[in-house]
């Protein structure tokens, strides 16, 4: 089947899509957006988090066909080419990136959290990010990064 959707502001088309393909697969393998990651492909790890019409979703749990005619924003679309979003800057500065496989999902989830709750408390951060698994950092510096990103957002 043919699929038309908007990804990071661009209208894109994918041909010969098998009906069973996930949005994650189409983004990564057909539309040249491999930034969203495939750690579990069953909605447990959050590595594939993207916005679908402004709602945070696990793109591995969305059939590509469900995204027909809708707008997707991935980690690649949060800042312009050569630029960093304040959330991305905060993850770098706090040392919240090690292997980085969880990072795109965490950055999209943090972006969503701060948009909803500009000054999250620690328990609120922990709960909001509990669906994003990280195996390297022990989350300590991820929490630092979220606090830093919230501060940046508050002062900008």
């Amino acid at each position, binding site marked *: 089947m043919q699929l038309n959707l908007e990804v990071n502001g661009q209208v894109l088309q994918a041909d010969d899509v*098998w009906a*069973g393909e996930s949005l994650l697969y189409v983004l*990564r*393998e057909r539309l040249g*957006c*491999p*930034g*969203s*990651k*495939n*750690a*579990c*492909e*069953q909605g*447990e*790890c959050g*590595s594939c988090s993207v916005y679908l019409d402004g709602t945070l979703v696990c793109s591995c749990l969305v059939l590509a066909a469900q995204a027909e005619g809708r707008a997707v924003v*991935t*980690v*690649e679309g949060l*800042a312009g080419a050569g630029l*960093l979003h304040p959330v*991305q800057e905060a*993850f*770098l500065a706090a*040392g919240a*990136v*090690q*292997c*980085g*496989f*969880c*990072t*795109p999902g965490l*950055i999209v989830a943090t972006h969503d959290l701060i948009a909803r709750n500009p000054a999250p408390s620690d*328990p609120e*951060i*922990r*709960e909001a*990010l*509990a*669906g*994003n*698994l*990280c*195996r*390297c*950092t*022990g*989350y*300590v*510096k*991820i*929490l630092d990064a979220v606090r830093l990103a919230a501060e940046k957002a508050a002062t900008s």
Partner: protein
Amino acid sequence: MSRASTAPVAPPVAPPKEGVPVQGGVGTSALRPDGVPKVKGEFAYSSDMWDEHMLWGATVRSPHPHACIVSIDITDALKHPGVHAVLTHEDVAGRKTFGLERPDQPVLASERVRYRGEPIALVAAAHPETARRAAEAVHIDYEVLQPVTDPEVALDAATVALHPSGNVVRHIHIAHGEPDPEADVVAEATYEVGMQDQAFLGPESGLAVPDGSGGVDLYVSTQWLHVDREQLAASLALAPEEVRITLAGVGGAFGAREDLSIQIHSCMLALTTNRPVKMMYSREESFYGHVHRHPARLNYIHGATTSGELVFVKARLVFDGGAYASSSTAVCANAATLCCGPYEVPNALIDCYAVYTNNPPCGAMRGFGAVQACFAYESQMDLLAAKLAMDPVELRLRNAASTGTVTPTGQKIEGPAPVAELLTRVRDAPLPPPGSPGTPDIRELPGGVSNATHGEAVRRGIGHAAGYKNICYSEGFDDYATARVRLSAPAGEPVVEVHTAAAEVGQGVATIQLQIARTELGVEAAVLRPADTSIGSSGSSSASRQTWMTGGAVKTACEAVRERVLSTAAEVLGAEPGELYLSNGLVMSLELGAVYSLAELLGDTVVEATREYRHAPTSPLDANGQGNAHAGFAFAAHRAVVDVDVELGLVKVVDIATAQDVGMALNPQAVEGQIEGGIAQGIGLALMEEVQVIDGVIRNPSFTDYLIPTSLDMPPVHADVLELGDPGSPYGVKGVGEPPVISSTPAVVAAVRAATGRALRRIPMRPDDVAGLTDRSPAGEAPREPR
């Protein structure tokens, strides 16, 4: 394994002298070179590899843990439209087996399968779903055999041999001191450790690209490019230079990428189809596709005087290696040699076994044999303290190892061994405030928002533990790393380029290499070439060794480059090279200050040096387990504070305090990251992480059922980082990555014991265990045998 070279470590070379420190040099929290692409989603992991013409590979795996293969029929699979190849053992051109330490594992099984998930056939197809469906159409007839799943049964001489060499992969016997010493007080118990998974997030994956003339290029995530290439070349029947491997982005490793996964298979498919082939495991397949941490059963007897001095340790340790050897021999050696803990133990009698079974193969995971032993010996220290009516930390302090301590293998600890100081620091660290009485925030309680309790039946507990780990490779292995450093000024500014094969797996060795180059050459602009097999080996990103080893190689190569630059400058200036040094892009004279810009001096010249670095040689163990087997040791201590719902068996880790000697923190932020991440894995092993294997079959191969700590499970960490400097390593560094995962687990268990009064001899502790449903014996008394 070959014996280590007896050549001395490179002679000391003058340091880069004083001067304004270069930006991003050693000792700073320099940013990762891969950080920006990682936060933007532009970093190319192995699963992101892509080619317009690529095919997808899939693997046919055994549904049985033990069976004879009667026949394999690929006819139907080949008929699937879109299928380009179906391969079996008959298509393995070279050596039919592979393995890290002994090639005992079939590339594709031919006559017998020894574990559930063992690869038997391969498919390449245009779409991954086509490949999966064709894989289901490979018909295999089996004669199913009874699996051997209990390591004690495997050890029995009457049990069927799973390999021609028998079922013992390795047995290490250590006899140290008096054979039959007398003690006033004796503590005996048996402990069990479940099978832990590394649970890296980036699945096994890569892209194999045929070169059109019989060779192949492979882009893959791995921990040791050169040992992969050795095994690939043997099984593909190619010369090593026909197999070129480049490290693709690695989504975590923790030991699970030491063994081959898709490497040989993807290359076989690419060479057969003459098309690029991508392979990528699903999470379920990943649980079958890599080795796990060895489950172990550890029986210990500790003897002490009434005043609490250790007299002896007797231990029998059995490690379940699963179906193939992987790195079981080295895991066995670590467990045996470290199994008395960081204490003065004058007499020791140890027998440690790694055995073959039909369980999933086990091998490397962060902590590598030291983890299982530490849980048991630290539990023993607490048990002994209870019998002596002593404070558990006091007992440890009374017996703490220090510089000069002789380990049970007869090896004298030469470097700093600040066990007493580490324990004192964590004991004296400020405690978190007590849980808020009255209206507690349920998010802070065991069970959290599942609203399991409002604070009733919640008890707080505190536990301590210390541990240690050998750093680098041991037992006489020729452990080395290679680095090429190139200094030039292509656009009128000095640039240093570093090339090694060290695998950046997230730990930060890429950052460290650049930091070292900046400091040693006084040049801020430093770039790292991709790690590949066109340079000599760096050894594995394991054993906490890369900062020491590849760091050492980069430093040595930089020193050679610097010597050449300074002798050229000295010639031009008519000065002595010893009077000159490099700082921030300038050639400096001790007397005159800046005498040259480095760019001006270099002009069009490129100064390049390639160096190998070796740590001091180590020795094999003799028949009594004696020998200077280890290159160095790293120490850490942990204190855990937990709240336990003693009725429901739910545990909330409230706080972890740790102290660790890292020798020198080349990148303080990265050191903290290693400590915090290691503690998370230690907490996971204590409380939730277990690959559940029943009759040889993994019952929970998913992140739904194999639980790892989330942001809700991880407490704040207070890390006290000591920098005592190891005399045998570059800059005095020690490995950082493994100690945090070793003693954090027993500290958490000790805290839960303190809260519940239960013996808790098995990890992970399940709610049933914590609530006393499986073993009601109180701490300090002999429990029922653990399940």
